[in-house]
């Protein structure tokens, strides 16, 4: 009889805990779904061809965000060109040669840097690049994005490389391969899809950054392709529209948000596609 009671209690406890955790999961996903739906509904009405292909015009005359789309693309790509190689290189060092005090220091600083609010990166680049150049520029914006990206890429690359089994390295070493060839020929290809995932997620992350661009690239009402000039970006444009006094501007902010979320979603789907299981 006693065992029956224990058994019943265990069953009740089990179903209670399952329900609680499931409720949390539903709550978490519901918020996200709500957010995305809200953005879609609000944004969709303001999107049209002109909005995508025109530059901003005075309030009430329509206009679009083509310059912001182009600007975001240029700065994200440029930031990635700086950030990805350095981040991946640092990650390879940490995983393959970083079991010493220097490696631990770099690891600790990277983790700290990941946690630093991005506006601080913006101020830092403002002091380091904008002030000497005496103007805001797309270059400064890209550099601040790269700085945000590097520690993220370094740490994910390190994690991915550490997942490559030791036995595979030993197999190559046993054939008389020097350490650098083991890393380059065997370890890197084996970790490639993981490294690519980490890289793309970092790209998605920086394409959604606002704060570091406020100080560095600022904004530009016109279409600009020059990296030494101010450049518009989707995020800063959203910030401007959303804080403007007119309802039309708020509409445009929602529409630009929808575009940005759509682009980030596209990057994530691309990552999924590129890293699907091959074997």
């Amino acid at each position, binding site marked *: 009889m006693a065992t029956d009671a224990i058994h019943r209690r265990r069953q009740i406890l089990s179903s209670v805990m399952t329900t609680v955790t499931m409720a949390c999961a539903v709550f978490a996903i519901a918020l996200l779904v709500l957010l995305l739906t809200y953005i879609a509904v609000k944004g969709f009405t303001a999107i049209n061809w002109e909005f995508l292909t025109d530059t901003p015009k005075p309030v009430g005359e329509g206009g679009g965000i083509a310059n912001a789309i182009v600007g975001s693309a240029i700065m994200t790509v440029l930031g990635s060109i700086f950030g990805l190689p350095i981040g991946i290189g640092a990650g390879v060092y940490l995983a393959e040669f970083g*079991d010493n005090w220097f490696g631990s220091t770099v690891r600790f600083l990277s983790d700290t840097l990941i946690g630093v609010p991005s506006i601080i990166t913006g101020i830092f680049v403002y002091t380091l690049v904008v002030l000497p150049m005496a103007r805001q520029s797309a270059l400064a914006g890209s550099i601040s994005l790269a700085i945000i990206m590097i520690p993220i890429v370094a740490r994910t690359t390190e994690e991915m490389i550490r997942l490559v*089994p030791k*036995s*595979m*390295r*030993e*197999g*190559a*070493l*046993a*054939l*008389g*391969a*020097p350490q650098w*060839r083991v890393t380059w*020929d*065997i370890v890197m*290809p*084996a970790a490639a899809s993981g490294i690519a995932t980490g890289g793309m997620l970092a790209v998605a992350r920086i394409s959604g950054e606002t704060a570091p661009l406020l100080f560095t690239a600022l904004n530009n009402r016109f279409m600009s392709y020059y990296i030494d000039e101010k450049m518009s970006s989707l995020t800063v444009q959203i910030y401007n529209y959303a804080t403007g006094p007119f309802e039309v501007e708020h509409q445009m902010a929602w529409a630009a948000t929808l575009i940005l979320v759509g682009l980030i979603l596209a990057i994530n789907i691309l990552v999924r596609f590129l890293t699907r299981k091959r*074997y």
Partner: protein
Amino acid sequence: MTNKISIRELDFYYGQHQALFDISLDISEREVMAFIGPSGCGKSTFLRTLNRMNDTIPGARVKGSVEIDGSDIYASRTDVVTLRRKVGMVFQKSNPFPKSIFENVAYGIRINRMHTSKTDLADRVEKALRDAALWEEVKDRLNTSAFGLSGGQQQRLCIARALAVQPEVLLMDEPASALDPIATQKIEELVVELKKDYTIAIVTHNMQQAARVSDKTAFFMLGKLIEVNPTQRMFTNPDEKLTEDYITGRFG
């Protein structure tokens, strides 16, 4: 027969922990020596001292000497990369690279720049695969992933990969322990075949396997070498009481 490998008073430490005690042992040219003993007795550790694979473990230390062809492999002038080319290794778990079957075998040839042309490379790959008794099974799918092979085929691929760089010594760390009896038999036949050209040291858990493939057997326990003798004698009339207890299954 001349001594290919000569080990003298070898101690080995993982940090503070001593794993091998005062091992002295000779392995002759073109001989198969089997290392047997209970789990954790140090036989794998010992095997890995012969191509300095333990160098990759932080805190690992060696005392004493290991000479191959009369030169000390732990001397400061020894190039570990050259050493490992000469002393090939096959691991307990097959560890093909994430490449095609062809590229797996070609890798060692490429990094050591042993081939003179593309056809020469292909010839060398074919020879290695033939020597590992795998050629017939894979010749039509050389460019497919090595992970598509069965466990036994993967292990023979790893043997082919090791043979492709033309080593003089082959170290095998329980090469058949993860394989079924048919695949195991193939590996064993291969070892007997390879003996004609290579000096082989093989770690095994399986005493029948040691009896089937080896010329001499060394019995390890708790990091000490208890006995080395011709395999025939070892399994019929061992010198040591401990050896007899182990091979008759009284412990371990």
